C-alpha cells in the first residue's frame, strides 16, 4: 500500500513537472515567435528609410517615413508629371501612402509633403506615350507609367525631367501596454491615416528603441535637431510571459536587433 502510494506520488509529480516544463517552453517559444516576427516586419520597413526620414526617435516611440516606391519624372509639364515607378500603380499600397517627396538633385535631400494618394493621382491614360516621347523604353513595362498632378502646390516646386520622387508611408512604432494582455507590453504600429494596431505582445517594460549616431554609441533618445545623425536603430526585445502556474517566476527572454539604415548617408 505504502509502496503503491509512493509510486503514484512519484508518477504524479513527474507529470506535473513535465507539464510545467512543457508549458513554460511553449510560452517562451511563443513569446520569441511573436517578438521575432514583429521585429522582422519592423526591420523590413525601417531598413530603407531615406535621408530626413526619421521624425521621432524616443525610447518607446519611433516615427519614420519609409519609401513605398520611388518614381522618376519622364515628362514634366506645368501641373502634370508623368512618371515611371517599378511595378506601376498596382504595386503601390495606396491606402498607406502618407505623402510624396522630391529629391534635391544637388544635395540629395528629400522634401516631404503629406498628402493622400488620391489628392495627386492622375489618369494613367497616355502616360506611356508621353514618356516614350522623351526616350523611355516602354516595352515590357507599359503599365509602369502614370500621371501625378498638383505636385507644384504640394512640393513647392515643379518637378523637372529626371527628378526622383518618393511615395512614402509614415509609420509610428510604439511600445505600450498590450491590449491583448494588459499585464505585459506590446509593440504597436500606426500608419499615417489609420489607428494603431498591435503587432506583438508579451514584451517586458524594458523593451525599447535605441539609436546609434555618428558618435558610434547607442542612446535612448535623439533630439529633433540630430535626427539626421542616426544610422542604426536598435530594437531591444525583452519578452515576459506570466508563469503558467503560481509560485513560479515569470518567463523572460530577450535579445536585440540592429537595423542599419542603408540610405541615410
Amino acid at each position, binding site marked *: 500500500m505504502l509502496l503503491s502510494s509512493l509510486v503514484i506520488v512519484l508518477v504524479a509529480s513527474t507529470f506535473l513537472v*513535465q507539464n510545467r516544463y512543457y508549458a513554460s517552453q511553449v510560452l517562451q517559444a511563443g513569446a520569441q515567435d511573436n517578438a521575432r516576427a514583429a521585429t522582422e516586419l519592423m526591420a523590413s520597413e525601417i531598413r530603407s528609410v531615406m535621408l530626413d526620414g526619421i521624425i521621432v526617435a524616443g525610447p518607446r516611440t519611433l516615427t519614420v517615413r519609409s519609401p513605398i516606391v520611388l518614381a522618376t519624372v519622364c515628362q514634366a509639364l506645368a501641373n502634370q508629371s508623368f512618371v515611371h515607378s517599378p511595378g506601376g500603380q498596382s504595386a503601390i499600397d495606396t491606402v498607406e501612402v502618407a505623402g510624396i517627396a522630391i529629391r534635391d538633385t544637388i544635395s540629395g535631400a528629400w522634401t516631404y509633403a503629406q498628402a493622400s494618394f488620391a489628392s495627386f493621382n492622375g489618369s494613367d491614360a497616355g502616360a506611356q506615350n508621353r514618356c516614350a516621347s522623351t526616350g523611355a523604353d516602354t516595352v515590357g513595362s507599359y503599365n509602369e507609367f502614370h500621371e501625378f498632378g498638383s505636385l507644384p502646390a504640394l512640393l513647392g516646386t515643379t518637378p523637372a525631367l529626371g527628378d526622383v520622387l518618393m511615395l512614402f508611408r509614415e509609420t509610428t512604432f510604439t511600445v505600450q501596454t498590450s491590449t491583448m494582455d494588459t499585464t505585459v507590453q506590446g509593440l504597436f504600429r500606426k500608419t499615417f491615416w489609420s489607428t494603431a494596431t498591435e503587432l506583438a505582445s508579451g514584451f517586458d517594460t524594458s523593451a525599447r528603441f535605441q539609436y546609434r549616431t555618428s558618435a558610434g554609441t547607442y542612446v535612448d533618445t535623439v533630439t529633433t535637431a540630430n535626427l539626421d545623425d542616426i544610422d542604426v536603430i536598435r530594437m531591444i526585445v525583452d519578452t515576459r510571459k506570466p508563469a503558467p502556474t503560481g509560485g513560479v517566476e515569470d518567463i523572460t527572454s530577450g535579445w536585440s536587433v540592429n537595423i542599419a539604415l542603408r540610405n541615410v548617408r
Partner: protein
Amino acid sequence: MMPAQNTTQREGGFVLGFVILMLFAISVMSATGYLVVSNEFSMSKHASESSEAVAVARAGLERFVAEQIGVVGDSVSYAIGDGIALVTTTRLSARDSLTDVYYVQSEASVSDVFTTNAPTQRTVGAYALHHRRPLAHHAQMLISEREIEVESSFWGYGQVHGIDSSTVADCPGGGATSITAAIALNQVDERSLVNGAPDSEIWANYQAMYDSIALRWDVLQDPDFPVEFEDQMPNFAALPADSFPVIRYNGNQYFSNSHDGRGLLIVTGEYDAWTSFDWEGIILAGSVDYRIYGDIRGMLVGGLDRANPGSKVEVRGGNFYYSCNVYAANESLSYLSLIENSVFEVN
C-alpha cells in the same frame, strides 16, 4: 508464507515500470527541447536568408553599375554568395543630350540546398544616370605636363589642330565648334603648326585637369575592370565599321603600324608612338613619352597618373580633332552612376 522468488519478481516489475516512466519523461523533455530548438533554428535561418537576399540584391546592383561601360545591357545575372542576382535595366528618359535616366533593378534569390523550401527573394531598385559621352571636348591634346612642344623634324611634321576635321556628312554633330588645340601646365611651344580656338591653354595643375575631364581613371586603369580587349588589338576587319571598341594595354606600350585602329585606347602606363602609328578615336594614357610620333584623329588625354618622364612632351606627329571619332569612342566610355539616395527595396 510466500516463496522468496515471487517477492523478487514483484520488485522487478516496479523497477521496470519506474524505468519506463523515466524514459517517457526523458522523451517528453527531449521532444519539447527539439520543438523549441527547431522553431528557433527555422526562424533564425529564415531571418538570415532574408538579410542575405537583400545583401545579394544590393551587391548585384552595385556590381552592375560599377562594371558597366559602353552600351547599357538589358539584363545580367551574377552568382554572389549563396544567391543569384538578376539585374535588369529600363531606359526612362533622356535628361539632356549627354545624359539618360535609367531604372536599375536587382532581384536576388537565395536558396537553401538542404530544404525543399522556395528560395528567399528580395528585390532592390535604384535610378541611375547614364553618362553617354563623359569626356568633354576640352582640347585635341591635353597633357598634364609642364610643356608641350609641337615641332617638326626629319621624322615627322608636328601638328595639333582643334578645328573639327569631321563634317555633317560623317556623322550627325560633325563639323562641331572648334576647340583648343593643346593644353599643358606651363607652356605650349608652337614651333610648328598649332591651330585651334584658341591655339593653346595653360591649366593650373594636374588636379584641375583631372577634375575637368571627369573620367573614372582609377576604375578604367584597374586590371580587374573588364574591357573588350586587353593587351592586344582586335581584328578591326572583323568588326563593323562603326564599332569603336575599348582596348586597354596594361603598363608601358610602344605603338607602331601594327597597332593601327580605332576606338578608345587606354594605356595604363606610358604611351609612346612611332611615325607609322595611326589612331581614330580617343587615347587615354597614364603618362606620355617625352617624344611622340604618330597620327591621332580624335583626342589625346595624357598624364592621368600625374607623373611624366620628362619636363616636356615633343609632339612630332599629326594630331587632328575629328569630332565624329571622338563621339563614337566616347560612347564606348559611357558609364552609369547611381542617383544618390535612390536605392530602395521594391515591395
